[in-house]
């Protein structure tokens, strides 16, 4: 099993190949449909963002509400292709790592290659398993969006698969 740490070094990203299983530790920001719409709107208006995109990791996820005794409630990945409209711009702004599930568009794949980034897939629907890999949570932005708010999650050894590597190879092509 390959072990990676976020933020990732370019050398580590360059060494990954589509289809490899990894465990990732480190910080990522949750953001899904509504948060992406806001972030892109703020970028277009030139407004300051609530967190630094350059070098960051984004997790397409909207967890269940916090429950007593747990660091975070169930929080699996959501469908990445719904972020197709936003993802290229975010990669161009420096997003280094994205965690989601399922295939994405050719434009997104091109943006990954152009920026030397990487797209990981988590197992869709494995919300309890993914929550059990979170060791810390911090609210970051857009609390009014409820489950779609941006939060910083610290993962410890979360199991992922390299879905699209920085060279553009895609695990969903190799079937």
């Amino acid at each position, binding site marked *: 099993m390959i072990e990676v740490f976020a933020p990732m070094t370019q050398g580590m990203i360059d060494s990954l190949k589509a*289809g490899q*299983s990894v465990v990732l530790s480190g910080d990522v920001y949750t953001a899904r449909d*509504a948060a992406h719409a806001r972030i892109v709107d703020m970028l277009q208006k030139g407004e300051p963002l609530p967190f630094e995109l350059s070098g960051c990791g984004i997790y397409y*996820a*909207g*967890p*269940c*509400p*916090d*429950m007593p005794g*747990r660091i975070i*409630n*169930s*929080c*699996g990945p*959501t*469908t990445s*292709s719904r972020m197709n409209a936003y993802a290229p711009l975010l990669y161009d702004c420096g997003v280094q790592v994205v965690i989601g*599930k*399922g*295939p994405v568009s050719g434009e997104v794949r091109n943006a990954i290659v152009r920026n030397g980034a990487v797209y990981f*897939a988590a*197992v*869709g*629907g*494995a*919300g*309890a*398993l993914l*929550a*059990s890999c979170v060791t810390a949570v911090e609210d970051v932005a857009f609390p009014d*969006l*409820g*489950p779609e708010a941006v939060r910083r999650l610290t993962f410890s050894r979360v*199991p992922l*698969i390299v879905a699209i590597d920085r060279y553009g190879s895609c*695990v*969903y092509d*190799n*079937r």
Partner: protein
Amino acid sequence: MRTISGEAVTQAVKQLFLSACRMPERGALAAIESALEKETSAPAKEALRQLVENARIARQTGMPYCQDTGMAVVFVELGQDVRIEGNLSEAIQEGVRQAYEEGYFRKSVRDPLTGQNTGDNTPAVIHYDVVPGDKLRITAAPKGFGSENMSRIAMLKPSDGLGGIRRFILDSVRIADGSPCPPVVLGVGIGGTFELCALLAKKQLLRPIGSVNADETLARMERELQGDINALGIGAMGLGGPNYCLAVHIAKYPTHIAGLPVAVNFQCHAARHGSVTL
């Protein structure tokens, strides 16, 4: 005439969702475990292994199996000799409201245009059937939208026939690819009108996985389609292998001489539902 209180309905709906939102039906979990045994693709095998582990963690912690605890769909079979004290629809909505709040389930329901979240996961989608007898049967079916989004309906022509139906279903699977969180169950409706066809498809998702269709022709179609779909090689989570589809469930209804409606409703591996009779 038998009387059932609105409060009894609220409590029944609440308990159904508190249970269903946490864990898929036993048959789905068993089907995932048997898929794991026959998996041929290494990444898909790892994904299925994680799903088994996910169920174990959900059971141990009380966290929902999947964070998308869905839009609440409720099927009601109301005996014609039952009188409900109070407002039946409101009693059901209140049960949904309480379950999503007390269960720490995600509130995923929003205004389709403004985006404003309703805050309590209501309104539920409620389907009523009036049936003989003095019983009230309620089925809770929380539906995640990763799979719901991939569902399709087509108004085919009679000349399209069985071949056209088959092509439409396989095309729907190719378009959905790995997005609906396979392994999936496919509910298929054939015939009726535009809206009934979609409802037939949805109701087929309630059938236990592994159950055999009472109609022999449909039972054969189900087996053949499942084989054809799995032969596409999309696989669990879109990662290859023979485990895209755990079951195909088909229902038909007579239709107009000018039409041939077909609907495909995708159900992800978190096949969640429960029923109670009052």
